[in-house]
């Protein structure tokens, strides 16, 4: 089961993690990642812009690729859009598998592809100004290890 959601509302990490267990006892590991708004350098808020439709299809394609690479039992990705303030949750990626290595690796793979391929953009507010975040070359380097 893969669930992919793009939403303005917050999500409940406990509920997302609980939903990854299938109750059948086949999952031996759940790995999860939660991205938060970091309030450094005077950041007061950030607004996430996105391309509806393409975000879902791009993430779904990488979820399918993760399933080809690892024996995944369940996968959930939630990405928020709109205006968020420091400390708020942005993204959830959770993977259930029979063993921890597959769960950890698939979660990292999904986050690396999400950051470099899913059409989201961050507008950061600092003081009176707002600037669009530039893509980081470190993220491009990070994704190369999966090629």
């Amino acid at each position, binding site marked *: 089961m893969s669930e992919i959601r793009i939403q303005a509302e917050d999500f409940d990490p406990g509920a997302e993690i609980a939903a990854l267990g299938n109750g059948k006892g086949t999952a031996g590991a759940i790995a999860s990642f939660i991205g938060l708004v970091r309030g450094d350098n005077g950041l007061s808020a950030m607004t996430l812009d996105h391309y509806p439709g393409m975000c879902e*299809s791009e993430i779904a394609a990488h979820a399918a690729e993760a399933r080809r690479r690892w024996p995944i039992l369940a996968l959930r990705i939630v990405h928020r859009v709109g205006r968020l303030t420091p400390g708020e949750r942005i*993204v959830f990626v959770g993977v259930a598998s029979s063993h921890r290595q597959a769960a950890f690796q698939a979660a990292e793979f999904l986050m690396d592809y999400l*950051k470099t391929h899913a059409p989201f*953009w*961050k507008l950061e507010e600092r003081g009176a100004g707002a600037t669009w975040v*530039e*893509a980081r070359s470190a993220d491009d380097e990070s994704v190369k290890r999966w090629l």
Partner: protein
Amino acid sequence: MKLLYFAWVRQKIGISHEDLTPPASVTTVAALVDLLRRRGPGYEAAFRDVKLLRVAVNQQHTGFESPIGPDDEIAFFPPVTGG
């Protein structure tokens, strides 16, 4: 064709989407960019340096040499920064 603009591309152009019927000679993304660039100062600013831009045709990442047709959805945006 349907054109979509995101992030600072949308801000510079001033609109998020529009429908356009380009001349039949416009058969690639690059030719479309040349056409759009001449539509006003906002477009000129948005398309000044295409190295700063990415493009998707029918919601698939692609390159500026990609062929395009009248029924395509073409989106221009900066490199993505989600997660």
